[in-house]
């Protein structure tokens, strides 16, 4: 090893030292310990006692756990497609060469800045059954609004609507993607007689597909971690219809002190996210158009 190489290693390690320590202490160690605790009975008050696969066996017969899994995926199946359609639609509107585009973009973006706690408290108030603004607006057009957050049928859709309000970040991301699509493509298509639907279907969508996939996968990963808004708005109710994966993990860990059990959930969560990331990677290699490359 030459002298410069040696001094470069020292320099490299010095610059990255805080991060390497941080990565070990606050990421790698907890992740490995999560796996270890998942094979133990651990209440935080006494030392973890190994129990083998018991936590995992319990999980798959735990009706509440299975309920939170299905709740989470049902929510994702509603929230992600709607979110994509609405934000893509708004981005396409904004991309039509309109005046005052920055103004409209800001209006759509603003709600996504609202801190989740404030957002949850605000929508709790909007969704009130008798004196809520949404049901009052529905009443004006002759519809009797449901008991949103109090009914097993409407609580999830209410959370989906709440989530849609914060789709502004996706709008900005889609808009940036749309602006990369060359104008000539549309001009050429128009010369060939393509209508607006054909233009969107055969030019816009294929060309911004990487952005769409990226957003959907990130959305899935985000949904698996959704916590603050349902915790504050419904706290999982009614009848556990809005109890989501991370909320149950939190309950098991910090309400019932079943740390081992919670860690088994954490490990399963990790594998779900790893699988999603892998799927995203495979799809993007097969089906996605990357400009030029």
């Amino acid at each position, binding site marked *: 090893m030459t002298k410069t190489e040696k001094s470069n290693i020292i320099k490299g390690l010095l610059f990255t030292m805080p991060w390497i320590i941080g990565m070990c202490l606050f990421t790698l160690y907890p992740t490995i310990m999560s796996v270890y605790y998942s094979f133990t009975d651990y209440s935080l008050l006494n030392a973890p006692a190994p129990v083998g696969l018991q936590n995992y066996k319990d999980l798959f017969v735990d009706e509440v756990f299975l309920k939170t899994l299905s709740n989470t995926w049902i929510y994702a199946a509603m929230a992600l497609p709607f979110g994509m359609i609405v934000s893509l639609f708004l981005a396409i509107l904004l991309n039509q060469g309109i005046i005052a585009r920055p103004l409209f973009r800001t209006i759509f973006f603003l709600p996504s800045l609202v801190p989740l706690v404030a957002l949850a*408290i605000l929508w709790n108030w909007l969704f009130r059954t008798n004196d809520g603004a949404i049901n009052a607006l529905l009443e004006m057009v002759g519809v009797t609004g449901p008991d949103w957050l109090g009914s097993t049928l409407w609580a999830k859709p209410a959370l989906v609507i709440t989530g849609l309000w914060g789709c502004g970040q996706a709008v900005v991301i889609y808009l940036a993607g749309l602006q990369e699509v060359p104008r000539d493509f549309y001009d050429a298509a128009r010369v060939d007689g393509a209508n607006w639907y054909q233009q969107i279907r055969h030019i816009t969508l294929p060309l911004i597909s990487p952005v769409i996939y990226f957003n959907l996968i990130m959305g899935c990963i985000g949904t698996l971690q959704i916590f603050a808004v349902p915790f504050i708005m419904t706290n999982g109710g009614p009848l556990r219809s809005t109890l989501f994966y991370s909320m149950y993990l939190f309950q098991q860990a910090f309400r019932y002190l079943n740390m081992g059990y919670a860690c088994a959930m954490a490990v399963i969560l990790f594998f779900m996210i790893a699988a999603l990331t892998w799927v995203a990677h495979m799809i993007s290699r097969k089906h996605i158009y990357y400009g030029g490359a």
Partner: protein
Amino acid sequence: MSVISSRKVSDFIAKIPLYILLLAFSAIFLFPLYWMICTSLKDIVEANMAPPTWFPHELHWKNYWDVTQTIPFWRYTANTLFLCFASVIGTTISCAMAAYGFSRFAWPGREKFFLLTLATMMIPFPVMMVPLYAEFKAFGWIGTNLPLWVPAFFGSAYNIFLLRQFFLSIPKELSEAAIIDGCSEWGIFWKIIIPLAHPALMVVGLFCFMAVWNDFLGPLIYLMDPEQFTLALGLQQFQNKHGGTDVTLLMSAATLMILPIIILFFFTQKSFIEGISLTGMKL
């Protein structure tokens, strides 16, 4: 009227349906914010009327003063601001250093460490939540605000990744010229790279500030003493306690919590939008 401007006018007319749609959506997106402010200015009797009134009969600005007296609002704000600033300083410095080490000069092992860094981006907080709690408990940090800002001084994978991308785009010749002039590696980092990376550091700092201001789960897990609560946690506790009784104060508090973020946004709009497009486009 010239040919060009008449074409502009007909173009505008063709787009009228488009503007109607945009205005309709704008109304939908703005309504909840309007409703929050509207409720925050009503008196409590009017706020609980069914059906609700669409505009306050009288503007009760005093609600904003009252809420800062009903809950320790300024204490919560000070606690939150401390966490925000400590985290922003810690994150930008530690991430810039690591990003520099991963991008500006070669050393054996660099690629391996960087790959590991990328891999940790996939691990979400809930996966580590329990062992982190046990770890901080062993440190004696539970019930203090240390778990909420000390880790920021030890970097975060995503920000390192973003800054590294930016550092790679800075011409190598700048560093080489500085070395010839006898500048140390730290000098290059501090005097050349950091000033040039200003926009990227802005984005990282801004998003860090927002994340800490918004964080609810962290304070919920680690803080016990109401004296140390953040705005997010304090507001949630206030809602729990008041169970919908004094909604005017609740909406005033929510407005006050949103306001600094909106102001921050308007001052840094360019960084914001760039940052989001940048992070979204990076595959």
